[in-house]
């Protein structure tokens, strides 16, 4: 943790890779028998702190599956996954939940905010999910201001635009100061200008806070802001030209 917070932006590109996300020889199959889908086929991926990696590919290629495995939502059938040096493939669901709470941030398509919560409460929520001692984190109001939503702290999701919702989602994911941010199609519900804003925000946050960001997208327009671009086809991951 301390090495990450003391790292300056200029050194993040060379920071030790195991502080970010590392996946080695990961396989994931869904279903069984003739129905088996090889969602992840020998995937290797390293994303360093401060790096924004994009994954593109056709529908059903396994992009969401990769994020699920990277964040400990699903256990791979084979292979190693570490986040900031922590093994995300441990069998205990409880242990993976705790690792996720401490080290991983998720940003979902269309924000996936909780309808009952105001923007400020959306940001407080991650700090409330652990025990009392986990409550220290960033200041929600400051964070909202940081993503350009100062003055909208009391709005509920239905009172926010799609782009604003996505900003709240990104701010929420950053509240616990995660090592890795996993982002699934953040611009799917947004127009062109908003899409650029959001991905620029992600790139900026990745650098400023030395977070390893993996973003799945269909939107080739926004790849200019990404450090690395991977392409996923039929569960296989390859570097894109």
């Amino acid at each position, binding site marked *: 943790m301390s090495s990450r917070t003391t790292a300056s932006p200029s050194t993040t590109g060379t920071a030790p890779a195991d502080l970010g996300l590392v996946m080695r020889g990961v396989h994931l199959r869904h279903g069984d028998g003739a129905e088996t889908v090889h969602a992840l086929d020998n995937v290797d991926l390293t994303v360093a702190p401060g790096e924004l990696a994009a994954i593109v590919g056709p529908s059903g290629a396994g992009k969401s599956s990769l994020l699920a495995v990277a964040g400990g939502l699903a256990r791979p059938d084979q292979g190693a996954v570490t986040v900031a040096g922590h093994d995300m493939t441990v069998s205990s669901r*409880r242990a993976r939940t705790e690792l996720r*709470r401490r080290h991983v941030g998720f940003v*979902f398509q269309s924000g*996936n905010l909780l309808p009952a919560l105001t923007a400020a409460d959306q940001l407080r*929520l991650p700090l409330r*999910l652990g025990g009392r001692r986990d409550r220290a984190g960033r200041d929600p109001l400051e964070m909202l201001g940081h993503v350009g939503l100062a003055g909208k702290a009391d709005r509920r999701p239905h009172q926010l635009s799609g782009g604003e919702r996505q900003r709240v989602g990104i701010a*929420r994911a950053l509240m616990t100061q995660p090592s890795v941010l996993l982002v699934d199609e953040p611009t799917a519900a947004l127009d062109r200008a908003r899409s650029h804003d959001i991905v620029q925000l992600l790139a900026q946050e990745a650098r400023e806070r030395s977070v390893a960001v993996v973003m799945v997208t269909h939107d080739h327009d926004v790849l200019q802001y990404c450090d690395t671009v991977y392409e996923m086809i039929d569960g296989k991951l390859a570097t894109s030209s």
Partner: protein
Amino acid sequence: MFLAIRELGFARLRFALMGAVIVLISVLMVMLSGLSVGLVRDGVSGLQNLPITSFAFAHGVQHDSAFSRSVVDASTVDTWREQPGVAEATPFGNTLINGRTDRGTEVDLALFGVETDSFLSPAVSEGDRLGPADGIVVSPTAIDAGLRVGDTVTVDRLGTKLRVVGVTEQQDTFGHVDVAYVPLATWQAVKSGTPAGTQVSAQATQEITAVAVRAADGDSVDLAAGDKAAGTESLTLEESYGASPGYTAETTTLQLIQGFLYAISALVAGAFFAVWAIQRKQEVAVLRALGASTGWVLRDALTQALILLALAIAVGMGIGLGLGALISGGNVPFALHPQSIAAAAAGLLVLGLVGAAAAVVRLTSIDPATALGGNR
């Protein structure tokens, strides 16, 4: 808590509708509780106030009508008195009469025939204790109904005149009829249908309804052995309530309704929270993906159910108590009993929570991976 209370506030209309159902059930529950306590009091308070532990009725008597059918020979009293553990045994006579006061008011009375110098002769709050052959001591509820100390009640058909000399200390009713304690000899005359001024037959002076038995403090009486010796059939005081007219039918009906209400509240809570859980699927998947443990999700959901149920039950009980206060004191047998109301509230809360818990456990099976795009 964090999410639970915010959701309660956000979806307040939805929760209020659900709460309203529980409020209504709670009101009904208070009403039923008041009614059952009232009915029990109206049905058997005369028996409850007797300082005895059991009755020895005639052998083979039907239990649900023992008081009206049982005839026991007075000599069995002596047999019972000698049983080990028996502190006192005394004759007890019971019969219902219709009569008319000298002022023309119609009265129904449940006569309790007792020996005037026995331990069953009641203390009085007004007037004199039993003594004169025609003197009766009545329940204060009879006074509320218009009878006065000094009134003479003439028994229909027989013409026997009974003079109200005193009033017992607390409500004494039997099968919803006011109790009048009467000297045993007078009771025997009325029970045997002997008209006023006629000699009571020798046989009638030997007949009583039952032997009232009081066990020595801390001692228990072997009722079976006593029955064998005396040729009687004993019922404990509590068992004898079932022999009071209508008692068993009334209490089982009310218990049945109460049982249904408990079941309904559990089902209503279960159905509501089942639908709520299905609607929250995506939201819970997000919570789990953000790092909420299943324990956190369950605690939050159950806290929500607890707050909703407790609030609704409190409001319902409050309304019920208000309505009950209006009703009690009238003609309806209704009495609010703090303990039974608290028990009903606790029962509703526990069963509501059980219903909610059964619905909410499904939240644990939600796959957090469904929070990711593509599955929406």
